[in-house]
């Protein structure tokens, strides 16, 4: 098809080559670093399904409160469980809860925000007032309430955290879209007869994707913390299933005598959030054609 087109072109014989998104992404340092970090965490979580150094459900009282050693790289907790193994298994929970919660927030919030911006008027009012109502509840307390009513567990925690992500994404999407609607290229698209849905998909979404990605990584980090909070009060992942937040909260009373118990789950959270932030930045850069030539 390309060849056929080139034959009919009067002015040019040079082949038109579009440099791929992937090659641009790979040229971005933050993308590569973020991708490696995220991949490591994800691989660790996947590996835990098949193998962990120790069984996380087994309590070995003789080994309790061990500092990091060759046998227990990250040390052990007060019940003698291996912290490295717990972090590996906990990664599943923390990541799954936070990711799905962000997914719920984006999946429902972004279309709502775009709809509000595209339609304006009554639709805008209804969507935004609904958002206000959700916003009016303190997120974590309400999540506690939801899980208390529907029973503790990872699934309910995901839904509870996800619901409170909806207005965040709806607002970000609406604000970004509202700033774009009066722009001339949107007017040009309207003058070309495109309807609001087409314009939203073709012009609005790609131009607010950077904003949404950044917000997504922030919400992801908050999601991990929220899950930690829920687990702390016993409404998140149920013991003996470990979770990063629960490990962190368990460790806080022993910070002086066994700092490793807090350090390693804390590091796991930091590294995951950082890697995802870098990944988000990298994707945003790769998607932005203006940065293309600098590399």
């Amino acid at each position, binding site marked *: 098809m390309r060849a056929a087109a080139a034959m009919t072109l009067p002015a040019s014989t040079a082949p038109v080559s579009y440099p791929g998104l992937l090659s641009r992404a790979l040229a971005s340092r933050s993308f590569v670093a973020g991708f490696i970090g995220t991949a490591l965490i994800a691989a660790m979580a996947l590996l835990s399904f098949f193998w962990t150094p120790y069984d996380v459900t087994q309590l070995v009282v003789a080994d309790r409160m061990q500092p990091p050693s060759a046998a227990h790289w990250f040390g052990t907790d007060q019940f003698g469980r291996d912290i490295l193994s717990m972090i590996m298994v906990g990664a599943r929970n923390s990541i799954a809860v936070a990711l799905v919660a962000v997914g719920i927030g984006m999946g429902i919030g972004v279309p709502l925000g775009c709809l509000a911006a595209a339609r304006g008027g009554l639709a805008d009012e209804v969507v935004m007032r609904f958002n206000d109502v959700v916003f009016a509840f303190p997120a974590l307390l309400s999540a506690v309430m939801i899980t208390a009513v529907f029973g503790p567990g990872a699934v309910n925690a995901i839904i509870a955290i996800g619901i409170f992500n909806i207005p965040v994404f709806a607002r970000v999407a609406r604000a970004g879209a509202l700033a774009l609607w009066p722009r001339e290229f949107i007017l040009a698209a309207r003058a070309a*007869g495109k309807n609001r849905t087409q314009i939203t998909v073709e012009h609005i979404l790609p131009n607010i994707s950077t904003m949404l990605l950044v917000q997504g990584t922030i919400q992801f980090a908050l999601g991990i913390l929220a899950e930690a909070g829920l687990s702390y009060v016993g409404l998140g992942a149920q013991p003996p299933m470990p979770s990063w937040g629960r490990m962190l909260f368990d460790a806080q009373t022993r910070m002086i005598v066994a700092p490793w118990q807090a350090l390693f789950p804390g590091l796991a959270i930091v590294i995951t959030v950082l890697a995802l932030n870098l990944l988000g930045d990298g994707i945003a850069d790769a998607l932005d054609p203006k940065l293309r030539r600098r590399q």
Partner: protein
Amino acid sequence: MSLLEIENLSVTIGDGPILRGIDLSVQAGETVGLVGESGSGKSMAALSVMRLLPEGARAAGAIRFDGKDLLAADEAAMVRLRGNAVGMVFQEPMTALNPLKTIGEQVAEGIRWHTGASRAVAEQRAAGMLDRVGLPPSRFPLSRYPHQLSGGQRQRVVIAIACALGPKLLIADEPTTALDVVLQAQILDLLRELVAESRMGLLLISHDLAVVTEMADRIAIMRAGEIVDGGDTAVVLSAQSHPYTRQLALASTHVPAHRQPTASVTAPAKRGLPPDGHSHGDTPLLEVTSLTRDYTGQRRSLFSRDPPIRAVDDVSFTMFPGRSTALVGRSGCGKSTLARLVLALDTPTAGQIRFLGEPMTGGSDATQKRLRRDMQVVFQDPYGSFNPRHRAERLVAEPLHLLDPPPDAATRRDMAASALHEVGLSAADMGKYPHEFSGGQRQRLSIARAIITRPKLVVADEAVSALDVSIRAQVLDLFAELNRRLGIAYLFITHDLNVAQAITDDVLVMHEGRIVERGPTAAVFDNPRSEAAKALVSATPDLHRAIRRKLEEQG
């Protein structure tokens, strides 16, 4: 000794030279014009004097102001100088003012900072200065905010800030580019008076040769970071000995090759008929009848509103195939609102728009598509009118979904390639993003998108006003050629009469929402009858007239 003496000034950013050894001087009481096209480095020269160059720029050479070497001065000395002995006026009056502060505060701010005067004293001086620039406190109290003023009034505030402390040198960087011609004439008069009053030196930077010729005693012409020609304005422009000066002068007065009567058989017969004249059997392209658009007034309280603002007031006109019409008027006269109504991007309060004999809105989807296909648009800002994340191919092909049936991918590609070819771009540009094109190329891209469906009418909203003169000339040629070759009629919205004259047959003069004068373009501009048209005609800068006047002055 000169007030400002720039010697062998070079500025580099990274490895790229921005200015290459320019020499320039300004005497007290003298106006020096610095002319060049965008990217020639004229703003960088101004910023070097203020030492406000962007991060990473390095300046070499010497800039002496009043005997002091500014390039060697420390930041504290520059802070004392800026806004005090050297004032600066920027292009965009909206962004040069702080929207959260009153105009009184903003003018008084510099006075207080530099003289240590108390708030009351400073505000008194500020009031005096605002009065001087034509904003008497009785009508424009100090407590006004920038958004409560019009563009021209805002630019007066910016000038008041720059001149509040009686600077010895005023640098005005494109001070009137964002204003319409009538406001431009007023602001230029004000600057001229301020120079005459206080023997202030004025460095006037502009891309508009006619404006600078009217204003400047001496002129310097910049190109690619170098001053290529300079001297007394009358001499430089009457001799036009440098080829680039000649090129700029030609481009500023450019009129596209004579427009042929259109392919339409009946069109020649209609030449000379007023645009609303009755046609015999020929379907009008566009018929606008008693069109009105009101904007709801601001809410005053829970139960009351300001009366609605009538942006377009009972406008009627008719366009015929292949015949272009200019819609001219000052900014805020409602011409862009009218354009949006015609494009059905906005809904009229009353009145009717018929395109090719059918109403633009309310028809079936198929009719809508057909009408949309025949009416396209070119906007002013060649950058803002493209989605920055799409490539040229997709941008240009955007209206193709209006075709019935929509073309497949290969056909789209072919059509995009030939549209690019028609506007003078090459098919190899299809993979580029908008930011990889220059301003003029982007406007060509805009035109390619507008003509890809072979429309009968293109609405062009200030389509060349953001372009440099030489590029503007090329784009005007392109418009004229497409009119001749494809029979496209333009509804050309502009405040620039030279542009209107260059490519349209008929003109509508709009003032405060109404059409106050209409007729063949040349006839209206040669002999304007309404006040609004007269004001526009007399305020429009004209290079030949300016040169004649300078020759008389400077002998």
